[in-house]
């Protein structure tokens, strides 16, 4: 874990982490719902998805994330908040790599490292 210094209080850091978990969890849940090969097509597919928990887990994650993000942004400057929120791009790609075996090409690794570096700079320096 990196230590978060500067203007970021424990509450802000906690909301930031919760946002990452909910955003990544929500996207993975939608991926699991949409990628179910037993689901069929058209209306049957939607019925199948609605009868299983993944779709609803995704929706619930997004609803809670909506509130968490509002709370987060109300406590820090917006320009800082949107930059810190960019870490979600990294989290979802890393999760995709581990859970779905998605490829991390060199260009993707470079992108992930640059975004992470930027978030660390903003987090430490405000």
């Amino acid at each position: 874990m990196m230590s978060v210094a500067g203007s970021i209080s424990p509450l802000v850091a906690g909301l930031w982490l919760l946002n990452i978990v909910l955003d990544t969890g929500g996207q993975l849940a939608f991926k699991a719902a949409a990628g179910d090969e037993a689901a069929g097509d058209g209306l049957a597919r939607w019925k199948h998805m609605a009868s299983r928990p993944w779709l609803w887990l995704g929706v619930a994650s997004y609803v809670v994330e909506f509130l968490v993000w509002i709370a987060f942004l109300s406590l820090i400057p917006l320009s800082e908040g949107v930059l810190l929120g960019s870490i979600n791009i990294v989290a979802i790609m890393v999760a995709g790599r581990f859970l779905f075996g998605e490829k991390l090409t060199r260009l993707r690794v470079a992108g992930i490292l640059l975004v992470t570096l930027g978030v660390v700079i903003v987090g430490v320096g405000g």
Partner: protein
Amino acid sequence: MKRFYLFGFLLLMGFDTLAQISFKYAGTQALPVAASIEWVLRVFGQPWVYGAVIGYVGAFFTWMALLKHAPIGPAFAASHLEVVSVMLLSIWLFEEHLNTARVLGAIAIIAGIVCLGMAESREHVPEPAEA
């Protein structure tokens, strides 16, 4: 067709920007933050939260339309580059100041997003145009 994509990318950025600005206004008006039903009621009791909903829904449908037609790499980048417009608008609307850390951090993040967009472009070679 290029002009259509460009319009789509700008529309996507516009909706995302509207959402973030609305989130900030909604959150500020609902202060102080508390894990309570009162706070949730304060959030939904003022109009800005619905600006955020409109921004999200608009961005979702624009994104779906873009994915059907536009190249994925630039679409990916456009869907995340609202950090630039949001930062610039927050100087004006919320009288925020850009310090060195935010500018340097933003440059690294934007460079990273461009790399990720290029990575998407390489992996998804566009199909031959239908029309």
